[in-house]
């Protein structure tokens, strides 16, 4: 690293989605020199393509479209003079406080007193014969195309997955002008919110539960798909195939936390199925098992934008507290408020599982602390 220049900052936030933006805002407000790094050239993360109005509490921007929340947060980032490094990849973490960053083919080292990983998630793939054909894509990838890039991925679309992402993107494909031939899901019921499935149903799009994709076919890109009914063991039922002529197949079968940097930094992990897979251990300050490295948002377990924002705040409050930029009392009070809001999001049939997942992580973190 001898010849490389060493940049420095107080708090480095990796990822400029809802969690990262909230973290950067909170850190900068407390007076920390804050740098936000994002691989995509535009900040905002998934918010930049969420054209629908958000659920949640009215006090917390419910009823506002994700795109508009994003615009507001980006305004605050600029106002607070957060250093933005967009289109910049973090390719490793050294000595738990140096970020190796690359922009336009040039590498640099950034030493940060505190690091907050808000790297988000990636979509799960779903392998069926023909799934690699051009025209098969993630539902989120299609959403990026229609809402951010203003490009229609295709004219006739099959949506695979009747969770919230599948239902929301199916509706937005209709808004963009595609035809959606059906939403299929191997589960025997619709796992997404009823209000989303109701919109799809009213638009006349069939939601086929207990159905999955047998194969996609086409010469060099998707020309059609065979959909098959499955029994309650998820086994295809013979002679129940339906041939659908589509040019696009969107896959919405869940998300996995993007946590490579936490692995590279030697953070301890645990497996939590309800939060999307391997998640770094962290405590109620969102600090991982590596001192000074925090996680927030989907990288800390798949949830939603609203909870990601709260976690981003908690991580940043804890980071600036540790830097001596905020009193313990104030940090404690702010965290308590954030947890109060989080609690209200993590109840009910949908929130409960995630709450249990979070509690599991804290317990595992506690056990780890006791071991060492």
């Amino acid at each position: 690293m001898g010849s490389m220049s060493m940049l420095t900052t107080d708090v480095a936030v990796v990822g400029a989605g809802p969690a990262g933006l909230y973290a950067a805002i909170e850190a900068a407000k407390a007076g920390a020199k804050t740098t936000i790094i994002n691989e995509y050239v535009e900040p905002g993360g998934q918010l930049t393509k969420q054209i629908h109005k958000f659920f949640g509490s009215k006090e917390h921007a419910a009823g506002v479209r994700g795109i508009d929340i994003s615009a507001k947060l980006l305004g605050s980032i600029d106002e607070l003079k957060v250093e933005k490094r967009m289109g910049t990849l973090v390719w490793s973490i050294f000595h738990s406080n140096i970020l190796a960053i690359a922009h336009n083919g040039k590498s640099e080292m950034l030493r940060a007193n505190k690091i907050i990983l808000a790297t988000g998630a990636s979509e799960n793939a779903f392998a069926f014969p023909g799934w690699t054909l051009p025209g098969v894509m993630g539902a989120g990838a299609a959403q990026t195309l229609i809402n951010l890039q203003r490009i229609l991925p295709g004219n006739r679309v099959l949506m695979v997955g009747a969770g919230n992402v599948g239902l929301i993107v199916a509706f937005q494909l209709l808004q963009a002008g595609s035809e959606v031939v059906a939403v299929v899901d191997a589960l025997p019921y619709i796992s997404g919110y009823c209000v989303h499935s109701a919109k799809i149903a009213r638009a006349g799009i069939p939601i086929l539960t207990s159905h999955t994709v047998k194969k996609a076919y086409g010469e060099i890109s998707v020309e059609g798909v065979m959909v098959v009914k499955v029994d309650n063991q998820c086994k295809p039922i013979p002679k129940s195939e339906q041939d659908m002529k589509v040019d696009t197949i969107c896959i919405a079968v869940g998300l996995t936390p993007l946590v490579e940097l936490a692995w590279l930094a030697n953070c301890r992990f645990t497996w939590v199925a309800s939060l999307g897979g391997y998640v770094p251990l962290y405590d109620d300050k969102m600090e991982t098992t590596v001192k000074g490295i925090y996680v927030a948002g989907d990288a800390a377990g798949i949830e939603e934008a609203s909870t990601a924002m709260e976690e981003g705040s908690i991580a940043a409050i804890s980071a600036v507290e540790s830097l001596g930029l905020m009193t313990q009392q104030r940090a404690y009070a702010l965290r308590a408020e954030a947890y109060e809001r989080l609690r209200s999001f993590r109840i009910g049939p949908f929130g409960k599982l995630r709450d249990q997942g979070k509690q599991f992580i804290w317990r595992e973190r506690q056990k780890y602390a006791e071991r060492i």
Partner: protein
Amino acid sequence: MRIKVHPVLGPLKGKATIEIEVDGRRISAIPGEMISSALIAAGIKVFRTTHKKGEPRGYFCGIGQCTDCMMTVDNIPSVRTCITPVSKGMKIKTQYGHGKWEV
């Protein structure tokens, strides 16, 4: 196909004022948009073929994670076209296998 009007996003603001070259063919692009977007707008779906079996691949994850959309851009192979913006006169080639550095 570009979405010119949208019930929430309104009319398309960007204008396809620049040209890029794909396998020798000229297509128009909107400054700032991703390479993959310009290609899909022009009806191009196959971005590369695989090393062993020569199977077609295209736009898949849209966030630079899956590497399905890699192409050779200005003689540099394996550029992730879904997170790389276009620039005027860019020369893009369908990538066969691992592609070749031609710098």
